[in-house]
């Protein structure tokens, strides 16, 4: 029997998720945006495992494992893209990517 209340675990999950979401929306450096996305996914993982602990269910652990693999794949594509962008404009500034306008 653990003494950590479920609501506190979920509060941590929500805090990580919200901080990450703010980072995705406000930061201009692509690398920091990718890190913020990792924060969002980690928030979701904490929530999954918190709930799993309360249900006594191992299934979510396997799910979190797969989500981690997906997140790693996403980071590798995102970083490859950062390198491609840097080669064009010597910058990874999201706001300066403005060749597309309508």
């Amino acid at each position, binding site marked *: 029997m653990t003494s950590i209340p479920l609501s506190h675990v979920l509060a941590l999950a929500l805090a990580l998720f919200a901080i990450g979401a703010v980072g*995705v*929306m406000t930061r201009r450096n692509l690398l920091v945006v990718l890190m913020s996305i990792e924060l969002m*996914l980690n928030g*979701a993982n904490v929530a999954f495992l918190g709930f799993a602990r309360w*249900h006594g269910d191992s299934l979510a652990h396997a*799910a979190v494992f797969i*989500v981690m693999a997906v997140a790693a794949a996403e980071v590798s594509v995102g970083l490859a893209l950062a390198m491609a962008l840097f080669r064009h404009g010597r910058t990874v500034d999201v706001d300066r*990517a403005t060749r597309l306008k*309508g």
Partner: protein
Amino acid sequence: MLGNQASLALVIPEAILGATVAGVMALGVSRAARSRGVVAASGSLGLLAAMAVAAWQAAGAHGSVAAFHGNVVVDAMVSLFRLVFFGTGLLTLWFAYASSEIDTRDFADMTALVCASVMGMSFMAAASDLLMMVLAMEFVGLLSYVLAGLKREDQRSSEAALKYVIYGAGASGVALFGMSFLYGMAGDTSIQAVREVLLGGAGEGTRQGAGFAPLGLLAVVMVLAGLGYKVAAVPFHMWCPDVYQGAPTPITAFFSVAPKAAGFALMMRFLSLLLAGVSSRLLSDGLMVLIGVVSIASMTLGNLAALNQRSVKRLLAYSSIAHAGYLLMGVATLPALMSATPDPSGFRAVYFYLVVYLFMNLGAFFVTSHVVTRLGSDDLGAFRALGQRSPLVAGVMAVFLISLAGLPPTAGFVGKFYLFWVVLKQGGAFYYVLAFIGVLNSFLSLFYYARILKVMYLEPSADTRPVAAGPLAVAVLMALGVPTLLFGVWFSPLLSAAGKVLG
């Protein structure tokens, strides 16, 4: 529920595509065999074989089977959507083959990515487990980012990929967080288990269905937000015009149809599995109003923004946002599905319209791709006097545009008519307002489609040399143009196919 080995026969189409991906990747590595023709032929062969098996499975009525320990559901809807995805992949391959925008060196890799991507989409249509949903979405998303950035030498292509990655990864993070709540309610990742909690049935003592409705609504909204990005609905549409303009044109054509159809397939699968028979006014009314408002916002903003675009790719991007709005009208008939006697006719209308949309929208993009390849620009000016310079191409383009605007005697008219009829059939002031705004928007869209027609037929061009269309281009134009006209008058086969969705 079938176990892992017993389920293998149900995913033969995807297995064929997996083998195709591996084969094409091998061709890409070998210097001798990576000519465009060989790669396009083997890719087409794989996609055609997968389509044939999918069509055969769609014809055999096997009901709905939960396969792979309930991770996926295989039914007529999956097979029908497979045909849409694989068909779009096949046509994209031919577009790319005829286009100058895809470098021959990248052609094999592009083919592998397109085949893998349509494979992921058919899992989106089949997913009946929360983990499977997010995995399939990410699968398709990741490949889309790469496809958008395929033209490495063009900065705009890289920027398109950048926009796609940021919005896509953010949206799937939101969806995943919503799913964690759904999991928390049920203690199981299967959507069916979450539904049972919402029904108030199988809860373990302390958990009660009614108390979970507010959290359930919040979680469903978060999942729908992740899907709203996939179908490019307002307010998750900001990536769409930039990605469509920056990506290579054949890839843009692919994006405008396949991921959108996959997003709708997953949305329909998720909502029908989660909410069938759940009698919660909070959920049914809340989701109806929410989806309805998003639908109205998408079609209105999409059409208004399309009015003064010079880039045809960008114009078609806004047009596709507006079409996501029309399609969402069908999804907003959700309360009919949640009633005691579930009525999925709204979702059937969505499938019907998606098939029609495949032909007319791919057609419009193919003509644009043709113009970009021959004349080097997708600016409206490049379309000047196309009616004289290439009567066939301009004529077929006119058919596509008339169909997109929803005018008879084309398939677009029948699809829109069906959609509006289903919405009106629901009754109630909300649906009347929804349908009324939809009709107003259809009139609004006439302006920009007609503008392309006017430029093609009435504006003179300094350059009057004819624009050649090769045999492949003519064949593709016919393959897209004939159904666009045919389904306008002879739509009963399509109607009966759509009737199998969630049947």
